[in-house]
């Protein structure tokens, strides 16, 4: 009985973990190419879900058409954010960047509240709500969609960063942006690219999770912070370490909610975040070089 429950919690934790992983990778991509922790990352996740609803509701688009539209608009918003808020900054000290990305995030949140109100909405599942039974535990088709889409995105990401010229250029920037500039890479364009990729990934994460958890103008902050937590566990890597970080977080959270208390579910992520920052700021798997504290 107990074991079945644990299996059930672990399975549902896996899919929320996949979402955290996607958001976390978004954080890492921007961090690695610019050194910025984008506090507005969560808002792009929220925008993904809300914009999909908007396209379905107002323009009567079918789901399969609304999703790319939402991702596209979100990506544009990410580009605008980089162009209007990050690039013009005269003194890009960490504190200024924190303040400006926080400003941006609550600005986006406020704007969505005005546009779509304070209600919670739900997005239809991609393919029905008929539960599937796997060894005494049940999961929804949406869980499978989440895991599948996450795998595809991570695979595409890997391909982009290791097998295309732009991806390689972005990696060069993350190792040493000055040196990358010297060999002719347009560093500023790569920074813009990193915002494009991470806002698109964030939007996608927001869209696939919305049928499960509902969405509203203020879901971005929690999702964003948990994605950041996943990235921290993974040592700000934009690869497999952050994915594992997200999955660990998702499973721990779901076990904690089921076995300890659902009210304190959200606190679990933040306690893990603080512990990792205090004890292993280089991440669970990283080597201790750690000038990032």
């Amino acid at each position, binding site marked *: 009985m107990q074991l079945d429950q644990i299996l059930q919690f672990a399975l549902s934790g896996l899919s929320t973990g996949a979402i955290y992983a996607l958001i976390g990778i978004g954080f890492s991509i921007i961090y690695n190419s610019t050194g910025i922790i984008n506090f507005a990352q969560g808002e792009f996740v929220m925008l993904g879900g809300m914009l999909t609803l908007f396209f379905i509701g107002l323009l009567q688009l079918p789901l399969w058409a609304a999703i790319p539209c939402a991702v596209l608009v979100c990506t544009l918003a990410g580009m605008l954010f980089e162009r209007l808020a990050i690039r013009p900054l005269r003194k890009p000290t960490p504190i200024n960047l*924190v*303040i400006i990305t*926080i400003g941006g995030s609550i600005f986006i949140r406020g704007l969505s509240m005005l546009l779509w109100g304070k209600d919670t909405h739900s997005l239809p599942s991609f393919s029905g709500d008929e539960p599937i039974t796997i060894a005494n535990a049940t999961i929804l088709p949406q869980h499978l969609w989440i895991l599948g889409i996450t795998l595809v995105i991570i695979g595409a990401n890997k391909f982009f960063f290791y097998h295309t010229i732009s991806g390689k250029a972005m990696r060069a920037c993350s190792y040493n942006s000055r040196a990358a500039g010297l060999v002719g890479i347009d560093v500023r364009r790569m920074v813009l690219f990193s915002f494009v990729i991470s806002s698109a990934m964030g939007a996608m994460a927001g869209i696939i999770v919305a049928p499960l958890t509902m969405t509203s103008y203020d879901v971005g902050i929690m999702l964003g912070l948990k994605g950041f937590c996943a990235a921290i566990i993974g040592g700000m890597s934009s690869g497999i370490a952050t994915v594992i970080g997200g999955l660990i977080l998702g499973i721990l959270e779901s076990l904690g909610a089921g076995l300890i208390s659902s009210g304190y579910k959200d606190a679990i992520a933040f306690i893990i975040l603080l512990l990792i920052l205090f004890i292993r700021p280089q991440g669970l798997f990283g080597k201790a070089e750690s000038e990032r504290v």
Partner: protein
Amino acid sequence: MKKELFKFLIFTVLILVAPLAFKGGYLMNVLVFVGINTMLAIALNLLLGYCGQISLGHAGFFGLGAYLSGILTATHGLNPWLVMPLAAGLVGLLAYLIGFPILKLKGHYLAMATLGMGIIIYIVFNESVDYTGGPSGLSGIPALSIGSTSFDSDVKSYYLVWAFTLGVCLFSLNLANSRVGRALRAIHDSEIAARVVGVNARELKVRIFALSAVISALAGCLYAHTMTFISPASFGFNFSVELLTMVVIGGLGSIYGSFLGAALLTLLPEFLRAAHDYDIIIYGGLLMVMVMFMPGGLVRSVPDAVRKLVRLKGGAGNA
């Protein structure tokens, strides 16, 4: 130094006579909150403006002060005046202990860690229903009183709160001009350089973090006793951002700037009814615009702009 004292005296007199201009009324109530928010903004400014260490969790300390004070007086019937130093002390101790690991972090990481801390505190307020009353709040907190005079009207609370706020102002002005204040600014400019010249940066950062938490908790106590009702919603992440906005708008590293920022953001929703619905857009926009175009805050940018304007006119006259 004399000039500083003179400025402070003028400020005090203005605060003291302000109620005469408003003759009680609804606005008095708002001015009480200006006082409380000024204390909070100064607390955050000591940390952020002087020492260069960001905190996105100060609403948590504010709330801890309010809840400790509220629970001990309303539920356990202790004397509010006894509870106040106790609550402030406990929150200070907590901040001191958290301070060591948390202030080892810098920049973005410090921001995230303090944000996480603030949210954990907020979740505790919501979930420990037996003590805090949970999301529906804690009521029946007694008003403060001295002898038989109870601080139960807006005018009385105004003088009570502002007595504390002016005290905090004076203390902070002194601190800023002292050896400690110079050490803090040295840490702000370069922590390594400060350590090289013998500033114990680690200890000092933690102390100022604890001091800042003590002031916030004190403001929390005053808030609990003037409102007589508290609920977790007042102490969430949004309020931490509002505090940050006050400090940035007023001017980092300026005590009077903190007052200006606190006054502006507290009065704005009262004068601009529409601002009530749009407040988070306004805060977000203001934060971005200030950092981009007026990094010195109103307190420095406005005089600079005036000076520039005067010089332009003067220049045109000469030519």
